[in-house]
Each structure stands twice: as C-alpha cells, then as structure tokens.
C-alpha cells in the first residue's frame, strides 16, 4: 500500500517515485515546502478517502508521518 502513497508524493513533489522513501520530507526534498504539503494533503485525502485533524496535519514532516496517520485512520 505504500506504493500508492509514494506515487502521490512523487507526483506532487515532482520527483521520480524511486526517489521517495519513508524518510523523504522537508529535509531532503526541495519542493517540500509549507504550501506544497497542503497540496499533497489535499490529494492524499481524496485518494485515500480520509480527513486528518488540523493538529495531525501539523505533524507532517516526512512520508513516514503520512504513513503513520494513514495507519491510524486504518487506510493502509
């Protein structure tokens, strides 16, 4: 199931999917800025049919955070 998540992150951050792993995030992706994170969230929420709390969205700094949240909401 990570594959779908990686695909979305790669397409929003405009990099090849092979460059995406659980540690991809603000520290190592140039396009991961505060605005793009919200663009990413919008797409993940519609792709996985989920709605995160505001507080949850503020915890997201890398792909692993997204994974954790999706697991918490039982979407992966």
């Amino acid at each position: 199931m990570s594959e779908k998540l990686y695909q979305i992150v790669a397409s929003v951050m405009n990099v090849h999917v092979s460059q995406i792993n659980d540690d991809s995030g603000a520290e190592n992706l140039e396009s991961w800025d505060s605005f793009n994170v919200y663009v990413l969230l919008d797409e993940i929420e519609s792709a996985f049919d989920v709605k995160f709390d505001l507080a949850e969205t503020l915890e997201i700094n890398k792909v692993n955070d997204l994974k954790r949240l999706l697991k918490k909401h039982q979407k992966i």
Partner: protein
Amino acid sequence: MLKEKKLSHYINNAKSVTIESYEKKIRIAILSSFTMNGLDDTLRVKCSEINVGCMIYLADYKQYNQEFLNPQSGLYKFNPDVVFFILDNRTILGEPYHLPHSLSDENKRNFIHSKLEEINNIIKIFTSSSKSKLVISNIQIPNYSPYGIHEMHTDYGLFEMTNDFNSNMKTISKKSDSVFIYDLNGFFNRFGERNVFDYRQFFYGDIKISLDYIPYLAHDLMGYIKTILGLNKKCIVLDLDNTLWGGIIGEDGFERIRLGQDPIGKAYVEFQYVLLGLHQRGIILAINSKNNLEDAMKVIKEHPNMILREQNFSSLRINWNDKVTNLKEIAGELNIGLDSIVFLDDDPVNRELIKTMIPEVLTPDLPNDSSTYAETVMDMNDFNLLKITDEDLKRGAMYYQNQQRQILADTAKNLDDFLNQLNIKLTIKTANDYTIPRISQLTLKTNQFNLTTKRYQEEEIKKFVLDPNYLVGCAQVEDKFGDNGITGVFIVKKENKSEWLIDTFLLSCRIIGRGVESAILSYILKNAKDNGIVKVKGEFISTKKNKPCESFFLDSGFQKEGTQWVYDTNNTIRMPKHIACSVEK
C-alpha cells in the same frame, strides 16, 4: 460535469511552460484579500494549452490597497492587460461577519457603504492610471448567520449586508467600461461552501479557496482571458442523431426517436434549451450530420418537442458527405474562422476525425450519458463576451437572413440584378453612447475588410469623438431580408484645412461584396468635398488576413503617392445606384 485536474498537475507543469514560443501574450495581475498561491501556475498552464503566453504578477496577499493606491507599486510597473481582484466576505465584512449584533442597523448600513466607498476609490484610481481591464469578484453570501433562523426577519441581517455589498458593486462597475464583476458567490454556490472553504487550510495559511478548487477558479477566469484575447467561440456545429435527439432518425423513424417524452428524451430537450439560450446570446448554430435531408428536416420542422427550429440554424450540412468537408463548408458559408467553431458530436470516431483533420476546431468530448450534455456545454468557458451589443443578440437571425439572400443570389440573373433586388438601405450614423461599444468591438475583431487594422478600446473611440480633428462614424445596413445592424466603421483624421486622412475603414465580413464599402467611401469623399477638402488620403496596412480589401483604394479611383493613396475630390464621386444612403444626425 467539469472535472478539473489536481493543483499539483498545474504547479508541476507550469515549470516547463515557456512564454516565448507563443504569438499571443497576455499580462495578468492577481490581487486578493487572501492566499492565492497556485492560481498563477494554473493560469500559466491553462494559457499555454490555448497557445497563449502569459506573464503573471501575483501581489503579496492583503497588500491590495497599497498596490492600487501607490502609483509606484509593482502592479503599475507590471503594466497588466487584466487584473483579477478577488475578495472574500471575512475581509470585507470584518468583525460584523461574526458579530453583526454589535452594530445597529444604521451602523451596519454605514459600514457597508464605507467598504463600497473604499472599492469605488480603488476603481477610480486604477482606471484613471491604467488601461488594463479590472475584474473584481463579488463576495460569497455566508451559509451561516449569527442571527440563526431570525436572519430572514432581521431588517439588515448578515446575508442582506452581503447582498447589499454585491448589488452595489454591480452598480459601481457599470460606471466604467473596463471594470467587470466576477461572480465569486456563484462559484461558491456551484461547488458548495463546505467543499470550497476548508477551515484547516484557512487556519494554516489564510487559504480561503481550498487548493483543490483553485483549478476550477482558474477555469472561470480563463473565460475572461479568452474573450479579452478574442479567442472566444462564435459558432456551435451540431450533429443530429444521438446529439440533438436520442436514436437515429433514418432507422428509428419520426415516431420513435427520443425527444421529450421519456427521461432519455427529456435530456435532449434540456440540451436544446441550453443551446437556444446561447443562440439568443449571439452564438451561431449549424448542423453537420450524415442523414437524408428530408428525414432530418421533418423532425426539425415538425417534431412537437424540438426546441431548436430551422430559423435557429445559420448553416445546414445534412448529407452523406464526410464531416470534415461539411465543416469547412460551414465555416466558408458563415465566413468565420475554423478557430471560432465548436463541434459537438456524440460519436467518438467523428470527433477524433475532426480533431485530427481540423485541429483548429474545438471538439470537446461529449460524455456517453446524454443527461450530462447540457452541463458539458454550460461548463464551457468559451462563449463569453465582456460586452453584448444589439448586433450580438441579432446575429443568429442575421445569418438565417443570409441563407435567404444566398437563395436569391443563386436565382438572380446576374450580380446587378441580385443587388437591385436586395433594396439595400445604408444609414450613416455618428458615434454616440449607443454606437461606441459596437464601433470599438468592430475595430477589435474585424480582420478581413479592414484597411489599417487599428484596434481601439471604447475609451479611445470616446477620445476621438471628443476631438474636433476626428470624424468617427458607423454604418447600418438593411435590406429586404432584414437588418444587418452596424457593420461598417470609419475614423477620419482632419489633418489640415485641405486634407483628410482615413485612419480606419472597415466592414464586417458578412456584407462584403454588396457595394456597401463603396457607398460608405463615397459618403466620406462627398463630406470632405462639402467641407472644402481637396485631398482625401488613405493607407493600406497589409496583414495576414486583410487581402480582401487590398485593391480597394485602387478600385475606388485613388492614386498612389508614396505609401499613401490619395483621392482628389474634384473628381466625380459616385454613389452606387442600388443603395439608398441616408445620414442620421
């Protein structure tokens, strides 16, 4: 239903858009009372999709007052062609948005009027120092009121404050020719506040139109860009079977095609109503269908549930020829460019054929489900005009009359006989408040019979009218089949006591070849002579499209002197015999 791509698609594709490769360009400024990131990238990509290079100035949000009021601001330095100024209800209504109870009714009214005064001031300052068009949004009527169910019984409640603001915005915008209102409230209505407004995004970054909906907003704004650049569509060419009605007339027969009686049939009626609405706004309709003419015409003329009738179609190609040839013939008959045509056909094979063979024609995918046809057309942003003139409203009827003229031309003994039978009446009119919008429109869009192709906005025409050194006029052409409306324009510069210069001389393409151009020119020459003018000079500025008038001066007896053409008014001035010309003061 319109399904937009995700915002990330636009953000990422915008990186590879280059503007240099496009001939048409536009400079767009975006100002707003909240975060609008992503709109710039979306517009860049959407413009490139229609071969327009766009340069965008995205002002820091909430800086709109400084941008508009300071003549040294980035906005004025950018020199935009169009400004999109997007407002939101929280910014405009301020604290009363949440706490309307804190103010008395009178204070609420004063508050709204002070806000309107601010906007009015911005408009005044901007329009006096920039030629750009200004598109301002109205504001969304909130879906919640602190008055609760009593909102509807409150004298001047929250909704009424918002309505009052919006309706006064409309009044303010009407005072200027370059200011237009974008119906942002309508945008929220269409998609729903609970989709468009996301509290998390609002708290996170003052985003008041959620990122998913930015591409939809851009789609709406493209409607303005297309019409500003003259890329709006003028004509819809329609298939018949399974497009205007369900079933195939040649196989199912008059009694069994589906049109109105059952749910499927009702979808086609709805679709026809939408098309008729566009037709009444000035969009030309035509038919391109493989059918027996007789079978199809029987439905169009006699089917009790047909909404569109024969007189609504300006050109008919109902035959067994291929659709590409038919479509090109329709464009020729109507004298419009292929790039101003939309082709609607339920058959994906036909659509693919047109897309491949005539890519200039816009061929949208019509979904399989006929219940979505109406929405598909309503979602298109290609049919807009910033100003609708009387001529636009009458256009459909005019093209129908043209068909009747063609029948006369085919049966007349010769050209003179045809022209004589037409009983052409030409009325020369001065430029005034009623004719100026049309005069400007004709200078902006006439390409073929246009000697100098100078483009003038309404404001510029007004300046000519006020200047005693200019003569601005237009010509209305009627004949026995009907009124063609204002179809000719001339602007003459009175250079000195003995010479006039023709600055602009144009004729709408649909009346070329009936001697009207000669009659208008004769009027100018005679007018010059009456004013003691010896020489009337003119210029032909060649463009890609104005070949039809390249020999006009020569044919009219002008002599070439350097780059100019000159007529000595001591020569005879002839008015074509078949035209009755009058002058309206």
